[in-house]
């Protein structure tokens, strides 16, 4: 490489214009989406509260006050108390620890298995792909909700088991999505370009394939969390999730339903918190989809 007339060597690195990466672009787009930012704020707030609960909770979650009984919201108990005189706000705060933890951990399990499975399947293609995807197809046909119910009944209500089980269901969708994404990235000419340069396979996957699937993965992770929270609440509602005196939103709602005629706030507040969380996560997921999907960014 010699003989260029104008030796434009950069002596002064300050003259280099900085570029905006797609991540920065996406963040700028997300910031403009008010609903998504609202979602992000609510979710962050919930997480902080859930983490700090043992120190900031106004009462203990199991301490009963039978003399008090169920009282409507007042200055002492902002969200009222339940039939055993326990503070509802405290119970919801502790419930959020369980619900959010199951949501995030199960999604993490799903994400880990799904991304690995999908990337390998999509990148290697051929027989490996056929085998791995056929496996997913077969697993898809299994009635997982039923299995989870059975699992809970058979082995007792165990949170660890619960999020393993939920994660084991949700990874299937993740694997399919990631594989689809990897397949389409493989078709891109920049992958051919990387191969023709003689780059090792691992480097191609690490530098060229995975960074380009991250957007999709983030979007679906955000949308999987509410699904998982919903599933846990559904199980707890049926009486198959966490065990009292621990609380989760589903369990609180299920108690609320029993007494909703007399003490409607016992149903109303847990339902509101659950719905608000689901709303926020879904709005955030939708917003991320708009921000990270270059197709949507075209006006």
């Amino acid at each position: 490489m010699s003989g260029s007339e104008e030796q434009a060597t950069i002596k002064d690195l300050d003259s280099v214009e900085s570029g905006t990466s797609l991540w920065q672009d996406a963040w700028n787009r997300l910031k403009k989406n008010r609903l998504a930012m609202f979602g992000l704020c609510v979710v962050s707030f919930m997480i902080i509260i859930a983490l700090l609960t043992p120190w900031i909770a106004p009462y203990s979650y199991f301490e009963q006050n039978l003399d008090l009984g169920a009282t409507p919201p007042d200055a002492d108990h902002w969200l009222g108390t339940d039939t055993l005189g326990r503070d509802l706000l405290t119970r919801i705060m502790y419930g959020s620890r369980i619900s959010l933890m199951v949501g995030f951990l199960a999604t993490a399990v799903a994400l880990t298995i799904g991304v690995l499975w999908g990337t390998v399947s999509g990148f290697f293609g051929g027989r490996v792909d056929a085998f791995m995807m056929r496996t997913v197809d077969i697993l898809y046909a299994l009635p997982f909700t039923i299995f989870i119910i059975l699992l809970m009944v058979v082995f007792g209500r165990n949170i660890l088991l619960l999020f393993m089980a939920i994660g084991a269901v949700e990874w299937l969708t993740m694997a399919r999505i990631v594989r689809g994404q990897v397949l389409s990235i493989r078709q891109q000419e920049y992958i051919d370009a990387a191969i023709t340069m003689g780059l090792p396979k691992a480097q191609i996957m690490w530098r060229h394939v995975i960074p380009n699937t991250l957007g999709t993965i983030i979007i679906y992770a955000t949308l999987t969390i509410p699904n998982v929270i919903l599933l846990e609440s559904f199980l707890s509602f049926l009486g198959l999730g966490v065990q009292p005196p621990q609380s989760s939103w589903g369990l609180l709602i299920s108690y609320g339903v029993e007494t909703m005629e007399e003490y409607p706030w016992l149903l109303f507040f847990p339902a509101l918190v659950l719905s608000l969380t689901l709303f926020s996560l879904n709005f955030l997921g939708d917003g991320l989809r708009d921000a990270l999907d270059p197709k949507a960014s075209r006006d």
Partner: protein
Amino acid sequence: MLKFILKRLLQAIPVLLIVITITFALIHAAPGGPFSAERAVPPEVIEALNAQYNLDDPAYVQYFIYLKNIVRGDFGPSFKYTGRSVTEIIAAGMPVTFELGFYAIMIALTLGISAGVIASLKPNTIQDYIPMSLAMTGICLPTFVLGPMMVLVFAIWLDWLPVSGWGYIPGDKILPALTLGFAYAAYIARLSRGGMLEILSQDFIRTARAKGLKTATIVTRHALRGGMQPVVSFMGPALAGLLSGSFVVETIFQIPGMGRYFVQAAFNRDYTLILGTTVFFASLIILFNLLADIVTVWLNPRLRDNSNSGN
């Protein structure tokens, strides 16, 4: 086409086998048998009962006996409901669950598709925002929240409709069907909006407009068929999900359907009933997925044509 259906039905066999095996293994791994709950029963009686239901055989023997019976369409007798066979219980609960599911899906399709199509015609306007916010609400209000809330408002406070039941009092079917249908209406609305937006941005829609067609004609004749594809492929899993959703709805409204039997069977360790309902649900899911695939192909002439050359 016929060949494809046969192939898919054959593929269903290993899936069902896996289902049976996992369920069987799970139940047998569980501590305690079905009769251990009744404390007052003397040991001899339990032994007799165990012998009657082959429970004293090694697990693999029970497994093969069970498989052999299933092939003959016999799911065995229920452990808890003495004198009734699992097949009878399923046959009794099935029509109820199906009826509930049918109403729910009709509500879901009608509400969902119309909301989705209306929203897709003017994206990012008020005509889009209102139905889509409603849909988001539907997704974020799970059946076990929506159901009780509706009961509270329409049955208890307003006293317009019955609180629970199925076919006892006129109008008692409305709330359960709405509850179950609404969540799916929300998903369908979002999917139809997406599908329609995709199709409406295609070149051939521009061609139709250039011909001088009215918007209504463009939607019904040119766009709907392609735009509904995401909805159709969602219907397979949705119908399956509807069944598990019916667990909740049947529990809330005390409806004597399959879902309620299943939840109770699980709590009661009613082995044969659990196995029976699980196999039955699994077969239904396979069947619905197959139907959804067939409709997808029927809607898309390209795929239909490939099938002919394939045979």
